[in-house]
């Protein structure tokens, strides 16, 4: 694999992106080289302007062009509930359901000492200062992932928030809709059985 220095450089930069291996990076690089000049300009400008215009919403810490973000400044939303998630993409996933009318808080990661991600690296301080600023918040929904680290992060927040009297809830875990019980793994199934409800 001997490419010219500028192509090699492009491949190297693309390969740094998450989910892109060396082969995908090569494919993307050659695709970019085959584009029209104007298309390349659109792409680079989109990257630069997204990076330049995007900042964190001072309230929910989600990425936004306007501060506060569209969700936080929407007066129709329920301001007494905050849903705590790991990453911005979780916000858009939950928004897609159109079921949730409250606000969000994005942590930008989970507590994982082994990966050297400490509590300071997460937007937890920002969550607490938000709780102090707004006394109309009644409930915190912890929607971190159902992994060991997601559980521990939720547990940490729960223990610190509970004394304040604010209601703390954790999203339920169980069987995916439209799935057969037959194919559920034992752990999910036993959790679903434990969390059964009157019907």
């Amino acid at each position, binding site marked *: 694999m001997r490419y010219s220095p500028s192509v090699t450089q492009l491949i190297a930069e693309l390969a740094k992106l998450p989910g892109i291996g060396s082969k995908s990076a090569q494919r993307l690089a050659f695709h970019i080289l085959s584009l029209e000049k104007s298309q390349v300009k659109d792409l680079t400008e989109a990257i630069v302007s997204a990076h330049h215009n995007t900042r964190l919403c001072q309230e929910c810490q989600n990425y936004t062009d306007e501060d506060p973000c569209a969700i936080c400044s929407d007066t129709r939303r329920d301001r007494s509930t905050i849903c705590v998630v790991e990453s911005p993409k979780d916000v858009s996933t939950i928004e897609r359901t159109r079921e949730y009318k409250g606000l969000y808080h994005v942590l930008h990661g989970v507590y994982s*000492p*082994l990966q050297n991600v400490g509590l300071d690296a997460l937007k937890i301080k920002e969550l607490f200062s938000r709780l102090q600023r707004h006394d109309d918040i009644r409930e915190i929904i912890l929607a971190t992932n159902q992994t*060991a680290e997601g559980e*521990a992060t939720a*547990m*940490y927040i729960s223990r610190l928030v509970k004394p304040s009297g604010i209601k703390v809830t954790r999203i339920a875990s169980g069987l995916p809709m439209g799935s057969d019980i037959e194919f559920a793994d*034992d*752990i999910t199934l036993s959790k679903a059985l434990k969390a059964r409800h009157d019907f």
Partner: protein
Amino acid sequence: MRVLSLHLENFRNYIALDLEFGSRVNVLYGYNAQGKTNVIEALYLSASVRSHRTSKDKELISHGKDYYKVCIDIQSDRHNSRSESLALAFYDAEKSISNISKKRRQAFHNSIELDKISRYFGLFNAVIFAPEDLLLIKEGPSVRRRFMDILISQIRPSYFYDIQQYSRFLNQRNRVLKQLRAATGKIFNHQSIPELDAWDSCMAPYAARIIIQRKHFSRRIAECAARFHDNISDQKETLELRYHTVTGVNELGDDFKTLLMPNADPNPEVLYEIESFLLSKWKQTQSDDIDKGVTGIGPHRDDLEISLNNLNIRLYASQGQQRSAALALKLSELSILQEETDEMPVLLLDDVFSELDAYRRMALLKSLGESQVFITCTDRDFVSKELRPLCPSMFSDTDSIRYFHVREGRIEVTD
């Protein structure tokens, strides 16, 4: 349960190997260091996802290769059952280029990849008898924890998940302890440390479930082992096993013990009681743990204490007595697996007869029953000369014995 065939890729000294087995006795013979045990090891790995010789999967990959793969076809004892295929693969992360999924370990059942290794457990059961069994008696608690863990995982797959989760939480907690230790100038007495409490609360339920399962199964192992040992030692000596947990859960008293008795599916109150007990213990030992940088209390420090005539078997028993105890433990494993799964596990006898006297050989042969057996030995005639006289019924029908000659990593079926 029967193994119909075995396929190996880049496993130990086999770059590629395909074997078809007989449904009763399979004898692998050949000189030392030719690869007999490697076949046994691959079969054992197919049952327990771990080798009986090493905990490092990398060591199982052939020299210069970047992965290994072990595939078997099996057939259950159940009436009219069809054959199933199982496969395990492991990729060396540093060298691997052929691995697309980027997972280090893959498991397949009937060619479908399983999303969790814990779902692989219980599909195929085997019990191994090997010279390493003696380590169960001679070595430290970790060997006996492993013995319990593998047995329970094969019977209750969710137990393996609990073990995995617990150790993940434990590693995270230990890292926090080290970070706290490094944070100079702080004094931690019994005050609450939120970053530690988060991990404690998360791992307590897993620890409680592990303790309950171990408590239940160690009781059953103890009953079984005592019975087998009576047979082997002609009732002259008493073998006793006791589950010892550093958590001091036994301090919870008789209420706790009776609650545990009836079955292995504990009610939520018992779990809750153990959880809160552990949480208070971890709080008490918090400053100690920070000093040492590791968690001192929990199921990761458990032991299965073994005594012979009320004396610690590790310190006071002879080599022969220890061997009898190890054999009794393994026979219990076989008997419990059989009882729980309603299947006769496949038996792997790796060079084990040479270390046993005629009396103990008899005890082992008697418990083989109708199961499929794999025997390794150096001499082809060992079975007909040494074993047939002890147990004529098992080896009388020469059709039921299949011989494999193992030489320099090649295996031939011989008459």
